[in-house]
């Protein structure tokens, strides 16, 4: 499999604290990867660096062969990197449909148009409805994002990122704050969408059931560095991961 994204020696420091400590991280084409680690391990910071929310202090980020380290958020999105947020970040005053449509307008560079009515662009709205349907939310199209349930908000967050037609999707804890009952349907939806469109995904997750059920590969981080990297089976047996994250074999 070809490498889609690669970071080399990526560093991010906050004062004396090294949140991301010379990380070499890889995502391959077509794979679903889980990024695990205790709180403060550096997972979200790594995603923030790759998606462009933060500027790296050192190191390189290479996406599809091009060095994107110095690129703006906007450029990275155009290149094909999209993300959802740990704390759901939506346009609460807009309907679910409007949220998704906005992403489509942006992707198609139509947001530059001042002199045409947004409502008149039928293809965009058609696609928006279809995307909502893919995520099982077409019945909530007209509901304001602020009025959706937590699970629906999480899905909408992913749907918006998906509407940007990315090659690589980062999902930051897509099931956090969601009841256990809802987790599986949400992950099923996300997983099937991502795999059928051959989008590569990197999912930050704490729920080990989700991690082991849905990922092709697991990367474990600890204190800003990569602790282990391998298939779910390999990780399940990895001593270091077991002691720092999952617990000792006896307790498991």
């Amino acid at each position, binding site marked *: 499999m070809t490498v889609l994204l690669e970071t080399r020696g990526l560093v991010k420091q906050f004062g004396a604290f090294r949140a991301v400590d010379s990380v070499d991280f890889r995502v391959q084409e077509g794979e679903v990867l889980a990024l695990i680690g205790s709180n403060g391990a550096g997972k979200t910071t790594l995603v923030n660096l790759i*998606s462009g*929310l933060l500027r790296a202090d050192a190191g390189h980020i290479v996406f599809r062969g091009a060095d994107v380290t110095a690129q*703006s*958020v*906007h450029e990275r*999105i*155009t290149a094909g990197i*999209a*993300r959802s*947020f740990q704390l759901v*970040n*939506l*346009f*609460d*005053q*807009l309907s679910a449909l*409007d949220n998704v*449509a*906005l*992403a489509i*307008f*942006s*992707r198609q560079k*139509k*947001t*530059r*148009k*001042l*002199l*045409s*009515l*947004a*409502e008149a*662009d039928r293809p965009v709205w058609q696609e928006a409805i279809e995307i909502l349907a893919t995520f099982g939310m077409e019945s909530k199209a007209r509901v*304001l994002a602020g009025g959706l349930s937590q699970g629906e908000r999480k899905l909408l967050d992913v749907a*918006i*990122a998906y509407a*940007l037609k990315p090659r690589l999707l980062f999902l930051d804890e897509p099931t956090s704050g969601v009841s256990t009952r809802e987790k599986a349907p949400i992950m099923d939806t996300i997983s099937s969408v991502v795999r059928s469109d051959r989008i590569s995904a990197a999912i930050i997750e704490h729920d080990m059931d989700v991690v082991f059920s849905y990922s092709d590969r697991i990367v474990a981080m600890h204190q800003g560095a990569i602790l282990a990297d391998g298939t779910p089976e390999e990780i399940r047996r990895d001593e270091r991961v077991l002691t720092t994250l999952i617990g000792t074999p006896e307790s498991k």
Partner: protein
Amino acid sequence: MSTVTVALEHRSPVRTLGWAVPALVILVALPFVADQYQTILLAYGLVMGIAALGFNLLLGYTGLLSFGHSAYFGVGAYTVALMVKYLGVTSMEAYLGGAIIACVLVTAIFGFACVRYTRIFFGILTMALSQVLWSLAFKFFWVTGGTDGLRVPTPTLLGVVTGSGDKIAFLATAYYYYVLAVFIACVALMWVIVNSPFGRALQAIRDNEVRAAFVGIQIRKYRWVAFLVSGVFTGLAGALWVPLNGLTTPDIMHWTFSGEIVFMTVLGGFRSFTGPIIGAIVFNYLKTYAVGYTVYWQLLLGVVLVVLVLSLPTGIVGTADRLRARWRAR
């Protein structure tokens, strides 16, 4: 980060036309039913309506509160006056064209400086820049006429209609209709802009800057364009205003005039499309009739603004909508 507490209303086109048509009829018929003074007074109101409409693209739709919009009004007005003084131009169309060009230049530069910054810095920076222009209008008195200002005669409309003869009659009929036509064009244009994909992007930036960035919108660039469009509308208003007033002086570039623009927009309701227009027209009447009563006009404005923000933050239009919704829910 700003959190919007009331969403902008989505009005279906039919409902919009519902009140627009009667309003239009009244506006068109006015010179025939009202006296000249009232007609000219409304012309002032319509002009300020255009200024407030432009201003609100930044505030209501992009979430940027400018305290220096008087600068662009002044640039529009002084461009006209200088065209008269140095080029002897009398065509109203030339005035409007010149004002637009001048405003594009000034807003492009000012906007580039201002939109890089957070709301607070943005506000004070806009105020400071307009004060710089104001002081320049004083300093270069041999160009701008200083405190005496510059006189502007009645212009030629569409190359044929001139103001020779009875000036008041001209202003109350031909010029009034000209202003009305430009007003309608501006309202229509602004309506399209705020309902365009661009307009939606602006509102996204206003509501959630980070998410807007992560949907691929270039925040700074879009704010800059909004700044430009906003300033040009207000500058256009300034150009329309000068022939009405006959004279332009530096105080239209002073921060207190910016304050009036802010006030009328908040009065009408900055979270709606029509709010600024209504606010401008109402304010115009308020100012005309109240200024006679008190010299402490600023104090009155300030107190009303504070009261408005405390208790009626959605302004006239927002409050009217709320009351109407409550009445319907009975």
